[in-house]
């Protein structure tokens, strides 16, 4: 039976190095949550702690109403899919899938029946008698998936399962993983460094850095409403412009950049704007305008690149180099003076770091 996972105040050390700090995470029944971050951010450590391969310094891990924190790994009943597949090289595909059932004392005939049914679901029935060495990468990962699913675990965890596959197969496999996970309603934790992969298949994503969760939210919220500069940069907000509020008039706030140029922002759109903040925008969120009356950040345009839907300019401003998009109808030359006008729907207001 699938269960909710609750991780509370987890802290872990490798020797004297703190690798995880006071991490809390809850995954609802049937939910797929991704841990996303660069290597060394603690995402794999978190997974290994939940799996029981590492022991936390403090904190608790609960699955449903069962406390896993000090339970040995082999008693945790968690399905695991590894980056390098980790199939048993000396066992046939069928025996690989049946392995977990065997450990649970399932009778031989029933075991074979269930393993075969699982292989059927991942489309590998014809390969049941092969050894793993004779399979392709994608097939191996399907066997690994079948092996983890056949024990009907209350929790399924993936450790960079698609990293060793080529780009096309990665996309196909992640859809397949999501479909199987949905169909079984298995609570899942998915570790990856690939943003697109995490966003495309997860219900919620925890973006991690230096052993902490920076933001834990739905992919949509993370992509559109990053909570801090780290997450903003991570999801592609290239332009972070520090600003201060110089005047407030009802819901309209006048903000000043470091070089003194002023912008009007609406609190109806951005919520309460603090006195000092950072305006975050992707290149899409800053529009290049040559209109002298436009309210924007004065810039000298640099290199122009063609994106198909727009031109993109590397622009020099008092706030440093910013990247902005301009319309296709009026290409501008390097050296031209222009203003970079924030597009409200495409910008965010963040607290300074």
């Amino acid at each position, binding site marked *: 039976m699938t269960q909710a996972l609750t991780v509370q105040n987890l802290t872990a050390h490798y020797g004297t190095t703190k690798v995880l700090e006071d991490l809390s995470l809850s995954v609802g029944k049937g939910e797929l949550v991704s841990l996303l971050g660069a290597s060394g951010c603690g995402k794999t450590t978190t997974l290994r702690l939940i*799996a029981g*391969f590492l022991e936390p310094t403090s904190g608790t891990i609960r699955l449903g109403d069962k406390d896993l924190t000090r339970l*040995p*790994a*082999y*008693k*945790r*009943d*968690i*399905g*695991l899919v*590894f980056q*390098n597949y*980790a*199939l*048993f*090289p*000396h066992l046939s595909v069928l025996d690989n899938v049946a*392995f*977990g059932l065997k*450990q*649970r004392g399932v009778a031989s005939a029933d075991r074979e029946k269930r393993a075969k049914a699982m292989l059927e679901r991942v489309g590998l029935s014809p390969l049941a008698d092969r050894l793993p060495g004779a399979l392709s990468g994608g097939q191996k990962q399907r066997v*690994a998936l079948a*092996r*983890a699913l056949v*024990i009907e675990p209350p929790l399924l965890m993936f450790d960079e399962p698609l990293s060793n596959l080529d780009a096309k197969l990665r996309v196909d496999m992640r859809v397949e993983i999501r479909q199987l996970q949905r169909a079984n309603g298995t609570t899942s934790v998915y570790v990856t460094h690939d943003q697109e992969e995490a966003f495309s298949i997860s219900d919620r994503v925890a973006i991690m850095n230096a052993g902490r969760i920076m933001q834990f939210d739905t992919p949509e919220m993370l992509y559109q409403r990053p909570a801090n500069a780290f997450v903003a940069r991570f999801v592609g907000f290239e332009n972070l412009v520090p600003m201060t509020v110089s005047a407030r008039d009802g819901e309209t706030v006048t903000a000043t950049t470091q070089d003194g140029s002023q912008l009007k922002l609406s609190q109806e759109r951005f919520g309460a704007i603090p006195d000092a903040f950072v305006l975050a925008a992707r290149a899409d969120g800053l529009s290049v305008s040559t209109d002298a009356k436009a309210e924007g950040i004065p810039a000298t345009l640099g290199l122009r690149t063609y994106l198909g839907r727009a031109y993109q300019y590397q622009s020099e401003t008092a706030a440093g180099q910013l990247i902005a998009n301009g319309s296709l109808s009026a290409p501008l030359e390097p050296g031209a003076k222009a203003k970079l006008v924030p597009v409200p729907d495409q910008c965010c207001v963040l607290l300074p770091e």
Partner: protein
Amino acid sequence: MMTSRINPLLILFTVVVYIFLMGPLIIVLGASVSDTTYLTFPPQGLTLRWFENIFEISAFRRTIITSLELAFLATGLALLVGIPAAYALNRYRIKLPSWLSTVFVLPILVPEIVLGFSLLKSVAVGMETPIFLTLLIGHMLLVLPYCVRVVSASLASFDFSIEEAAVSLGSPPVKTFFTIVLPNVRSGVIAAFILAFITSINDVSTSLFLTGPGISTLPIQILAHVEQFFDPTIASVSVLLMLLTVAVMAIVERTLGLTFLAK
């Protein structure tokens, strides 16, 4: 049709190498069937009486049995220590200091004569252990490095996440070692066994110090025999040892294929 020219010198070189490799074996084989009372080649006459002679001399009979017992026991014990050691050295490679694996190679870094002499002084004389036990300790020390190194080489390419996969599927760690780890390093264990066994069977230097009244090994007995006699019995014993080795290899080839040794 494609033909490739082969340099005649290369053919000559190859033939010479083969003669060099096989010559001694052929000479020993020839000498063992010579109907003379001294070692000679090419053989004069043809007889198998030197083979019979081996079994008529009780010292040979006894030492063959002692050598086999010793080789099996020493190799078995060395594997019992060596496999877990190799496992730990590989499994916890990052956590363990790097010099630790070198410790297991020390017995082959020390000249065998020194090893034998020190064991004589400290164990045989110092602790007054029985001769067979002293020999066993010596041989185990001698073959342990081979066991650790060869099994280690096999484990070096073993992916320990496979072990974790088994544990996550509900298999307790000790059981996992026997059902998952061991089957995947089988070839390494067999290779270690063969190397260790042959090392033990052939050892002279260490055994020389540790054999004593009533208990000796085959190579030491051969040495003793040569000091007094110069008849072809020695050649027959050698042929017997060769046949033993060929038999072991044949069994391995039949059951596993020889290529596994190269893995």
